[in-house]
């Protein structure tokens, strides 16, 4: 075959000119040095990794090196890095990036990460990989610097968006890529239209609920790899959730995805200790909870929203502030509320006001004082977060809040404050992702998320590489409430907490329903009686157990292991 050759001829004129004019000529020592430098920069083989020898501050783990090699040699630099939480996907991405830079295949790089991780990424690339990454602060950064780290929310907005589309990126890295599972979102569209020569998508949870998500993710990376949308969904049901049903599909996905599991890495992990702490409501709290539960029998409410009853129940298990906030909202948002409706709400508000203490908060205080070390409290509700902050302050415990909505700088600042000054970090759900807190080893789950994957991400903030102590997890559950049911079902019967990280999503993907949240709402809100609820729960439990058995049957053949 004839091969395309490009001769660099830019120097010829200059050279001829100098011969003509007899100089100026360079210095022989420098001339020799320049040749030496080039000989050093030459990469003599297509295969193998050059990067590790240039990284004196980093000792990559064997699975990280293997992943980098796989991606470059067998996946042509387009891959989903789907290691379980805490195995160092950032390190793998850094290795790959470094390798391409050394080989001169990549110069211009765009790294899109959650806002809270922007600084951390830039710092790690600079300190561990000697890659001069810059965090995006001004719009000129895009064209002036080669390696830019930004949040996707900034990048997708103009003027940035237009400038970014004009850049000629060689490599695009997207962290927490599972957020791109829905192809109808602006973020998805933004990434889809980026030119992706080499591309790395990082996620610990490639599938959360349905197979559609993996289709969207893969199609972003490598359109057509799983066929066109129509063909794909003709073959596989949109609602189905398991990759392993289909050997062929699994094989295809494995061509673009690498998933290392804790168990396979041979690394010694610190242990997890899980303690469930049952808590009893005070009389007033119980009264509020029961009144909310009774709402379900009122026809007016059932039609309005079984979901809001559920929400109120869960909030009542968290704090009176959370309930109050929702009630006020319900009153404001309802158009032409009937007098009965108003009275109903008002009577609930009276019950909220009657509550004098928060049983959970008191327990938390006791626990924090006993631990006498750094603690993270997770709650689902912003109102609870604010309350806890106030409550802890009353008892001279320093705390900092953390929310997904914080600006990047504020997140970093809060993390820093927590590390250096405060004893407690109070995070809402959105704070669960995108912040690494391995200097702390106690978590209090003040209330529990219904999707166990979210719980996994909470724990993953501290139970990751770099955690040196055993991790303590305290789950709060109020006796005789929906919370206790959830805890029993999801977290005790199927021993989710004891599972090694990552087994969880395996099991969940094997379950025979789409969205676990919907399913739980149906159980708790849709059941007419306690009996029905119990039966439905039994069903779910056996399904999960069944899925677990299959999983153990084909243990490591499960989705996405290479």
């Amino acid at each position, binding site marked *: 075959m004839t*091969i395309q050759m490009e001769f660099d001829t830019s120097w010829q004129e200059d050279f001829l000119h100098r011969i003509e004019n007899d100089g100026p000529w*360079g210095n022989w020592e420098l001339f020799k040095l320049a040749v030496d430098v*080039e000989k050093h920069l030459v990469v003599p083989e297509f295969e193998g990794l050059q990067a590790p020898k*240039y990284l004196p501050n980093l000792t990559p783990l064997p699975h990280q090196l293997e992943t980098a090699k796989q991606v470059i040699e067998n996946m042509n630099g387009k891959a989903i890095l789907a290691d379980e939480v805490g195995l160092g996907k950032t390190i793998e991405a850094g290795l790959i990036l470094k390798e391409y830079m050394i080989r001169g295949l990549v110069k211009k790089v765009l790294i899109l990460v959650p806002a809270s991780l922007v600084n951390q990424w830039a710092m790690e690339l600079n300190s561990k990989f000697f890659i*001069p990454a810059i965090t995006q602060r001004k719009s000129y950064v895009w064209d002036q610097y080669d390696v830019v780290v930004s949040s996707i929310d900034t990048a997708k907005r103009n003027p940035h968006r237009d400038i970014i589309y004009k850049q000629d990126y060689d490599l695009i890295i997207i962290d927490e890529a599972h957020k791109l599972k829905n192809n109808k979102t602006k973020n998805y569209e933004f990434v889809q239209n980026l030119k992706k020569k*080499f591309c790395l998508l990082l996620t610990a949870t490639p599938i959360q609920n349905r197979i559609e998500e993996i289709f969207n993710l893969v199609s972003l990376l490598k359109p057509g*790899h799983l066929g066109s949308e129509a063909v794909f969904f003709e073959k596989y049901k949109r609602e189905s959730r398991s990759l392993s049903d289909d050997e062929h599909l699994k094989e295809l996905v494995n061509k673009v995805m690498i998933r290392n599991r804790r168990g396979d890495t041979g690394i010694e992990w610190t242990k997890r200790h899980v303690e469930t702490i049952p808590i009893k409501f005070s009389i007033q709290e119980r009264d509020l909870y029961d009144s909310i539960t009774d709402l379900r029998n009122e026809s007016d409410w059932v039609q309005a929203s079984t979901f809001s009853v559920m929400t109120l129940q869960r909030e009542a298990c968290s704090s009176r502030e959370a309930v109050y906030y929702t009630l006020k909202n319900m009153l404001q948002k309802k158009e032409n509320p009937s007098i009965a409706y108003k009275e109903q709400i008002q009577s609930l508000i009276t019950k909220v006001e009657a509550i004098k203490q928060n049983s959970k908060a008191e327990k938390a205080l006791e626990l924090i004082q006993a631990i006498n070390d750094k603690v993270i409290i997770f709650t689902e509700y912003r109102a609870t977060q604010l309350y806890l902050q106030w409550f802890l302050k009353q008892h001279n415990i320093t705390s900092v809040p953390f929310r997904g909505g914080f600006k990047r700088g504020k997140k970093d600042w809060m993390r820093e404050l927590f590390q250096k000054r405060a004893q407690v970090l109070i995070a809402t759900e959105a704070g669960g992702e995108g912040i690494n807190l391995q200097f702390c080893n106690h978590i209090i789950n003040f209330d529990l998320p219904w999707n166990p994957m979210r719980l996994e991400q909470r724990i993953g903030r501290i139970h990751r590489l770099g955690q040196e102590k055993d991790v303590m997890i305290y789950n709060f559950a109020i006796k005789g409430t929906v919370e206790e049911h959830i805890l029993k079902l999801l977290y005790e019967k199927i021993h989710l907490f004891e599972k090694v990280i990552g087994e969880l999503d395996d099991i969940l993907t094997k379950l025979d329903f789409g969205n676990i949240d919907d399913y739980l709402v149906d159980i708790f809100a849709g059941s007419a009686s306690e009996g029905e609820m119990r039966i439905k729960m039994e069903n779910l439990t056996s399904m999960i157990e069944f899925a677990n058995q299959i999983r153990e049957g084909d243990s490591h053949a499960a989705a996405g292991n290479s």
Partner: protein
Amino acid sequence: MQQQEIHNFLEQYFQANECSIAENNTGYLTVQLTVELDKELMNRPFYWHYLEKTGGIPNPMKLTFITSKQDTPDSIKGETIYFGSPRLHQIFQSTKNLASFIRLYENHDHKNKQTALFPWLCMNVKISYKCDRKKDIFKSIGLQMINGKMVDDFHDHLLQIPLTPKIPDYSFTLSPLIKPKSGMARIENYLSSTIEVDDHSWADEANKRWEKDLALLNHFYEDEEKKNDSYEVERKALQEQYEPKVIISFINGGMFYLTEDAI
């Protein structure tokens, strides 16, 4: 390049540029820049402009480079230099810029004897085989410009020969029969022909990967009536990713006048 090599490289670079080395210890190096090198490296044109206008006394900077943190006392402040640091690559680039072209004579010891020096054209290049992967080959070619003899690894030969920028006494240079321009063309042709006969299965493989991904892409978009922008973007990305190319880039080169049997 390991830290010790970097240290040696810096030392040689600054010495070659006539900077005095104030301190040279394991782990760090302090150099007093010359005016020229301050202008080359420190990127402060306003300072130099101001100085030249006002006729002040130039005060070029003194720099400390730390090549090993462990071996450097904490009291020493300086730039940490490692492979990949922007400063080192700036210096690499500067090394190339300052010595792209050279002309040297063999410093022979034919005392008091008229000696003819033969002109050689030297070109050092990097040949890169590039697709979604890449490998490089360093080539140094010398062309004798009278009889057209071509020599590989020319740079290594030169390292064995004493060279000087001034023509030695009793020496005279022979005029080249081959013009520099056609000399360059000869070297280019020679490189092309050696590249052509090389094994290019890597390129075949890359083309196969490219075709495969392109087929997938076409399939993905085949349902759409009119191919949209994202299709074009993806198609172009595939081309940039896989298209096999050989890129020959120039490192440096020069004219060397050598005795008849030097090489």
